[in-house]
C-alpha cells in the first residue's frame, strides 16, 4: 500500500535559528527551504499529490505557479526521479476548493495540459464533489437531483479525460474519480469507469465519512470491479487506522493528516510507534510568540496585559523547557513556567469575564506532564528530533510546527511500511527508525 503525501508547499528553513527565533535575513523562500524528503534525508512517502487548485488558486504565489508549470512538478518539488527512483507525482483537480460552484472551473483539456506541462506520473479526472451520503439506498436509488447532476458531470469528464490524456503517452497513468451518494452508486460509477478503460480508480469524497461508511463504499466498489483494477483513496482522513483497511486491496491513498495534526489537533500532535499496529500520541507544548500571536495581541489591545509581561512569561517558559531538556530543571518547575503562560492564553479579553477556567488549565497541565515525563523526542532517531531535540515538541510558529509534522510523516511512513511483509520493508527508511 503506497502512502502518498498531499503537498501544499510544506517546507522548513534548514538554517532557522531556534534561540533567536528567526531565519537568516538572506533566506530566499522555497529555494533555501527543505521539503520533508530533503530534511529527513529520505522520502517519507511513496509519492506526492499536488492539486491544480493549490498551484493555480491556492498556496502558490504567481511566480511559483509559473515556475511549477515551466520546469515541471518534480524539478519544482526537488523530488526528481533520479534522486527518488520509483516515486510518483499524482495530480488532481482539487474538487473541494470549488465544491460551491455549479460546474468545475477547470476544463478537461486544461487539466490534461496542466498534467502534461508539469510532468505528472498520474492524474485524476476532473470530478465534482457529492456531499450527500445515504447508506440505506440500494442500487442507483436515492440521490438528489444535484447529486445526480454531479455524478453525471464526473462520469462524463472522466470519459473525455481518458481520451484527452492519450496525447500524454504511456508515461502517464490516468485515474478515474469515483463520486456517488451511496456505496452502491459509487460501485456503479467504478464499474462505468472500468468499462471505459480505466485500470486505476480514485475514490473521492471520503474525507467527511466515518470508518464504517468508508468500509461499505470500498466493499461496494470492490464488488463491481476486477481484482486487478487498482484503487486510490483521495484525502484519506482515517489514515491512523490504515491497518483496518488492508483487506480492501487498496493500492494507494493520500493524506496530509500526520503533518496537519502536529499543529491543528488539540491533543495529538506528536507521533511515536506504539507497536501492535498502533501509534501513540503526545500533546505539544504551546508557547506562542508573544508579539505575534493574535489571541495575545487582542489581550494587549484591550489592555488586560502588557507586552512586557508577556515577553517575560514567554522567555521564562522557553528557557525553563530548554533547561529541563538538559536535565537542569525539574518537572514541576517546568510545568509551572509553562502553565503560567498557558493561563494567559486562556484569558478573556474582557476584564469582567471570569479568569481562565480551572478545569481547562488542569487538563492542559496533565497532558503536558505526560509529554514531559515521557520525553518522546529523545526516543526518536529521525533527523529532525536528533537535530533540534525539545524544540520539536514546542507548539510555536511554522518552523517548529512543520518540523514536528515532518517527524510525524517519518513515523507514519514507517508505520505503513511495518504493516506490510518484512521482505518489502524499506531498507533506507529503517535506518532512521527508532
Amino acid at each position, binding site marked *: 500500500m503506497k502512502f502518498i503525501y498531499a503537498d501544499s508547499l510544506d517546507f522548513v528553513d534548514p538554517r532557522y535559528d531556534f534561540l533567536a527565533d528567526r531565519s537568516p535575513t538572506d533566506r530566499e523562500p522555497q529555494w533555501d527551504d527543505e521539503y520533508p524528503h530533503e530534511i529527513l534525508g529520505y522520502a517519507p512517502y511513496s509519492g506526492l499529490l499536488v492539486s491544480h487548485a493549490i498551484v493555480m488558486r491556492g498556496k502558490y504565489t504567481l511566480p511559483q505557479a*509559473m*515556475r511549477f508549470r515551466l520546469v515541471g512538478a518534480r524539478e519544482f518539488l526537488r523530488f526528481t526521479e533520479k534522486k527518488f527512483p520509483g516515486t510518483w507525482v499524482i495530480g488532481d483537480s482539487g474538487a473541494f476548493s470549488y465544491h460551491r460552484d455549479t460546474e468545475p472551473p477547470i476544463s478537461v483539456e486544461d487539466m490534461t495540459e496542466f498534467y502534461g506541462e508539469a510532468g505528472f506520473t498520474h492524474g485524476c479526472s476532473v470530478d465534482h464533489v457529492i456531499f450527500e451520503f445515504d447508506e440505506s439506498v440500494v442500487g442507483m436509488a436515492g440521490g438528489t437531483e444535484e447529486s445526480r447532476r454531479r455524478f453525471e458531470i464526473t462520469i462524463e469528464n472522466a470519459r473525455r479525460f481518458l481520451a484527452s490524456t492519450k496525447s500524454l503517452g504511456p508515461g502517464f497513468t490516468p485515474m478515474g474519480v469515483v463520486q456517488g451518494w451511496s456505496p452502491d452508486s459509487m460501485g456503479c460509477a467504478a464499474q462505468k469507469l472500468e468499462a471505459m478503460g480505466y485500470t486505476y480508480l480514485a475514490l473521492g469524497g471520503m474525507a467527511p465519512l466515518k470508518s464504517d461508511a468508508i468500509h461499505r463504499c470500498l466493499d461496494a466498489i470492490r464488488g463491481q470491479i476486477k481484482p486487478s483494477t487498482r484503487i486510490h483513496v483521495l484525502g484519506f482522513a482515517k489514515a491512523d487506522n490504515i491497518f483496518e483497511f488492508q483487506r480492501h486491496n487498496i493500492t494507494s491513498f493520500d493524506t496530509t493528516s500526520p503533518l496537519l495534526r502536529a499543529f491543528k489537533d488539540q491533543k495529538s500532535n506528536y507521533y511515536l510507534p506504539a507497536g501492535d499496529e498502533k501509534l501513540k500520541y503526545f500533546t505539544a507544548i504551546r508557547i506562542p510568540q508573544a508579539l505575534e500571536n493574535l489571541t495575545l495581541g487582542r489581550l494587549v489591545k484591550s489592555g488586560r496585559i502588557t507586552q512586557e509581561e508577556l515577553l517575560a512569561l514567554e522567555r521564562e517558559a522557553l528557557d525553563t523547557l530548554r533547561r529541563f531538556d538538559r536535565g537542569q530543571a525539574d518537572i514541576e518547575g517546568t510545568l509551572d513556567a509553562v502553565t503560567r503562560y498557558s493561563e494567559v492564553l486562556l484569558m478573556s479579553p474582557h*476584564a469582567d469575564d471570569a479568569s481562565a477556567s480551572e478545569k481547562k488549565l488542569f487538563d492542559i497541565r496533565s497532558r503536558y506532564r505526560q509529554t514531559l515525563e515521557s520525553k518522546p523526542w529523545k526516543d526518536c532517531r529521525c533527523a529532525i528530533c536528533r537535530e533540534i531535540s525539545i524544540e520539536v515538541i514546542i507548539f510555536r510558529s511554522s518552523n517548529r510546527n512543520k518540523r514536528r509534522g515532518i517527524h510525524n510523516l517519518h513515523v507514519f511512513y514507517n508505520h505503513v511500511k511495518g504493516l506490510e511483509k518484512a521482505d518489502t520493508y524499506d531498507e533506507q527508511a529503517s535506518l532512521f527508525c527508532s
Partner: protein
Amino acid sequence: MTNKLVFSAVRAAQSPQHVVFSFAATAAEVFAMGRIERAGRGDGGTLRGFQRPQIASHILEIRDYLEREDAVLPNSVVLAFTDRVTVTQVKDSIVEVEVDVSDGPPGLIVDGQQRLSALAPLTDKSFQVFVSGIICQNEEELRRQFILINNTRPLPKELIYELLPGIASLPERMSSRSMASALTQRLNFDRNSTLYRQIRLHTNPEGVIASNAIQRVIMASRSHGALRVLAQSPDGDERCFGLVSDFYGAIQEVFKKDWVGLSPKTSRLVHSVGIISMGRVMEVAFHVCGARTFADFREVLKNISGQTHWTQGVWSFGNSDNVRKRAWNELQSVHPDIQLLSDHLDRLVRQTNRDRVLQEPTVDLVRKTATG
C-alpha cells in the same frame, strides 16, 4: 537604584507654555524615565494609554540594523512629562534636567517605542539615543502631543522605491524591491533601452507604463524565472537588463499599433494587466522556446500577434467547454484578471510555437545554499 537621573540638555525656545529640551541617554535610562502606555480599557471600560502594540517584524528590522558596527540613530525618541522633572538653567540655552525616578518612571514615551524595544535587549547597552523631552501641563495635553507627533504622512511608495537602489544593506524585504527598482530605472533612463522614458516614475511623471507593473515582472522573474538564471553569470546585471529590454522591444515592434502613442485607457497592452501578463510570455519564450535575443522574442511573439485583443474586440479565455468571454477593456490590474490573461497567453505561446525550440530549454535553476 538611584532616585534621580541628571542630564545636561539643550533647551529650545518654543511655545511659552511648554518646556522643550534635548539630551542623550541609553535605552535603559529612557525606560527608567518613561513607560510605554498602550491603549486599553481599565475597570469600568475607561480608556487609558495611547500607544499601539509593538510590531515584531518592525523591531527585528531595526535590531538587525542596530547590531551593526556603523549603526547610527540620529532621530530622537520623544518623552513627555507632566511632573517629577525639574529643569534648571545653566547658561543660555544649556539646562540641567533632573528626573525623579524613585516612584517608577514619571514620563511617557510618545514616539520611538519600536526603536527602544529593538534597542533594549542588545548587549551593547552603552548605545545612546537622543531624547527630546517635553513638559506638558496635563494628561490631555500629553495625548494631544502624541497625536500631533504621530500624525505624519508616509512618503509615497513610488518615491521610496525609486530611492531604494542608492541605499546599501536594507532590510531583506526591501532588497528584492530594490533590485527591481534599480533595473526599472535603468530601463527608463538608459538610452539603449527599448523602454526609454516610457515608465512612469516619481521623477518621470509623463511616463505611461506603471513602474510597479515592470517591477512585478522583474521580481517574479528574479525569484522564479529567467532573470534568476541570467543573474548567476558574471555579467548578470547586463544580461538581465538586455533580456527585459529586448523582450519589451520585441513587443513594441510586433504589436506596434497597440503600443505606440497609446495609454492604459486606450490599450490594455501598456496597462499594468498587459505588462504583467506579458511577463509570463517572456518566461515561456525563455524556458520553453529557448528565446534569448530580440530576434528570438520577435519570432515567438509574431506567432500570437493575430490572436490578441489589446485595443478592441473580445478575448475568449479557456478552451472548449469552459469559455469565458471578456471585452478588451474589461480587464483590470487585479489578481484574477492577471492570472486569466497570463494563462491564456502562456497557452497561446506554447500552442503557436510548438515546433520551434531555438535552444535547449533551461530548467537548471540554481539553489543558493546547499545544506547537508
